[in-house]
């Protein structure tokens, strides 16, 4: 073997090594940074599709390039928390579920937006329906996110079915007893050759069942905790075995009895889809479905069997007690680690602006499917009313709506929701009765809350009332 051979081989080896390193490097290297850009991480709800269509307009207007990613609920949650743990963020703007806003802020993962909002005349905070800001976007007297899609809950009923069965169309101010009575009259009847179910519920654990059930606990005035969030001193002693809670769960179980049995496993959209198949008399659900049930399937645009054949009415109330509507939705927040806060704010402001929200509502690419406005002005917009004639009813439902009451954003909400959702599911499945289930929930809540140092609660409280939110809005206007 000659020396030159060795050299040549070594040369080849070195070259290969460099090539390999370069290949690895290209796998690891982030894409080239844009001069002005913003990274947005959202959940794959309908607003996301509408919003995405408009992104070129944002870039044209501001010169900011947008990297936009929509994820499923679980994936989004996993990605967000992972990034919080490592104290990095791969996004400048993130979607925050109503329940997450508190813990994200307390842990310093997202930053209050007060300073951005205050000096910004374009933001026009006064145009927001205050209930949406209160339910979705405030925490400890700060504006921590901005709503991008807010949902209330209302009843959808089949006009033709009511007519054929001679049932009067319901009106605001009706009671859950009436609701139940109507369902009883529909359930099992055959209408136009279709065997009707009274209603449909969401039974799937853990999140969907809690989402739908919590409208009942809100209506029946069954709070989760002794004093939270509207209290001078917070007290998280669980109230899950209260009489009202038992009534609410019993009612929910009754509603399940008037539903297709498979709804034990229904998630959000299963319930909506089922209604659009025309064998459900009436159900209450997030206002997003006022639009979505018109389509036969999601993002397809084909009309469903119930299109034009359903009315919308506010949720019933508990006797003479005023109705409490559960309000939920998605908002945009800014991670504390956001690399481009200015651009992020630009984006948040643009995406939540009346102009953009209106354009989202009018977007028809996959059929009209976004009417979940938070801005007062849009509910009376004539262009939007043409597409979404129910907007006045939807607006009315927001009055007095309170998401923080229905699903209190306690710092370990997800854990509590998991416990509750499981037990609710067990009640529906007949694996547990109402009393036993709620005692179990109360015990597990107590354990979880004390295990998480929330019982007794020694950290600072904040009397989070609707008035406090209104004061905040006034201070930021």
């Amino acid at each position, binding site marked *: 073997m000659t020396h030159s051979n060795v050299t040549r081989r070594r040369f080849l080896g070195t070259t290969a090594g460099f090539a390999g390193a370069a290949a690895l490097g290209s*796998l690891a290297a*982030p*894409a080239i940074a844009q001069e002005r850009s913003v990274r947005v991480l959202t959940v794959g709800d309908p607003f996301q599709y509408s919003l995405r269509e408009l992104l070129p307009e944002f870039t044209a207007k501001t010169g900011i390039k947008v990297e936009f990613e929509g994820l499923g609920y679980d994936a989004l949650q996993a990605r967000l928390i992972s990034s919080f743990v490592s104290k990095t963020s791969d996004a400048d703007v993130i979607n925050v579920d109503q329940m997450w806003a508190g813990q994200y802020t307390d842990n310093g993962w997202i930053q209050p937006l007060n300073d951005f909002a205050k000096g910004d005349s374009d933001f026009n905070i006064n145009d927001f329906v205050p209930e949406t800001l209160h339910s979705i976007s405030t925490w400890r007297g700060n504006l921590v996110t901005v709503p991008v899609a807010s949902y209330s809950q209302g009843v959808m009923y089949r006009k033709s079915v009511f007519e054929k069965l001679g049932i009067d169309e319901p009106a605001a101010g009706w009671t859950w007893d009436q609701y139940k009575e109507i369902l009883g009259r529909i359930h099992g009847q055959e209408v136009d050759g279709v065997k009707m179910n009274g209603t449909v519920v969401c039974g799937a654990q853990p999140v969907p069942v809690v989402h739908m059930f919590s409208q009942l606990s809100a209506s029946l005035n069954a709070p989760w905790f002794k004093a939270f969030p509207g209290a001078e001193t917070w007290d998280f002693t669980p109230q899950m075995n209260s009489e009202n809670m038992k009534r609410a769960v019993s009612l929910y179980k009754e509603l399940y009895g008037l539903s297709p049995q498979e709804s034990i496993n229904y998630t959000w959209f299963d319930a909506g889809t089922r209604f659009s198949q025309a064998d459900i008399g009436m159900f209450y659900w997030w206002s997003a*479905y006022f639009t979505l049930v018109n389509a036969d399937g999601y993002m397809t645009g084909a009309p469903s069997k119930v299109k034009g054949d359903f009315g919308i009415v506010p949720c019933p109330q508990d006797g003479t007690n005023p109705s409490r509507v559960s309000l939920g939705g998605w908002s945009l927040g800014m991670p504390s680690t956001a690399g481009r806060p200015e651009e992020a704010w630009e984006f948040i402001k643009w995406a939540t602006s009346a102009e953009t929200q209106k354009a989202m509502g009018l977007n028809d690419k996959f059929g009209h499917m976004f009417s979940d406005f938070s801005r007062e002005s849009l509910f009376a917009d004539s262009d939007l009313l043409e597409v979404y004639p129910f907007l006045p009813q939807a607006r009315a439902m927001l009055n007095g709506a309170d998401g923080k009451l229905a699903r209190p954003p306690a710092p370990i909400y997800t854990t509590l929701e998991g416990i509750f959702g499981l037990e609710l599911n067990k009640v529906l499945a007949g694996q547990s009765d109402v009393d036993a289930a709620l005692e179990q929930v109360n015990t597990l809540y107590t354990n979880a809350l004390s295990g998480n140092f929330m019982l007794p609660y020694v950290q600072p409280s904040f009397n989070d009332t609707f008035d406090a939110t209104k004061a905040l809005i006034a201070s930021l206007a």
Partner: protein
Amino acid sequence: MIGQNTATRKITLYALLALVMLFFIGPIIWFILLSIRPPSTAFTMPPVLNFTPDLGAFTRTMVDPGDNSGQAVNSLIVAISAVLLNLPFSVPAAYALSRFKFRRKKFLMLWYLSLLMAPPVAFLIPYFILMTNVGLSGTYLSMVLVMQTLTIPFSIWLMKSFIDEVPREIEEAARIDGASGWTIMFRVVLPLVMPGLIVTSMFAFVFAWNNAAFPLVLSSQRTATLPIGTLSYFTNTGVTWGNIAAAAVVAMLPPMIIFLVFDRFVVRGLTFGAVKG
């Protein structure tokens, strides 16, 4: 079974085979049909089969807005990189385990095997933290690296069985012929275990291609892979069955094509060296 192939026996066997194929392949076809059928027929029973195929779901997922086209490319990058990163680690180890005797070898083989049994969910958050700490979070490399915990052990087991079957005298002949270690590796051993390299690469590719757990936390928008894409159609407000099916069909095709094209290596590869052919 020679000598027993009477007509009845044949008919019975073919009937059984038809049943087996229907059972295992039918659902796949049913799912592929979902991707091209009008949504109105998706949940109609008895099944509607005379529909006009609609490629709309493929258009939506792959062209406009085409969320999944980029993800398909990402999947390809991740899966191919996973193979390329895998082989330099697994082939030498498999070679050593096949050719040398040393203490604790059995332990080592079982240790590799045990890695395939770790609960992947448990590792997601630690991996995210680890990758973030080394500045790799959201990159292809982070996914490719952690996937090696699944692919390298499997590859080593597979490759070892292939190398076991190359008579060591062939290597000795090459040594006596004057070949260097590299020459023996690249001109003698590797060509002889080519089927093994193909099978190993196939499995590494498919493992990486199909993995959903790691990209769930380790990918970013730029690097998200197809399984993440299919997951994103399953949202709170709706499930877009057509889109899911279309994206899933695109996700299913490469592994299927690979396994069908290289079919003859599959049977050979899956004996894990436990049977000598």
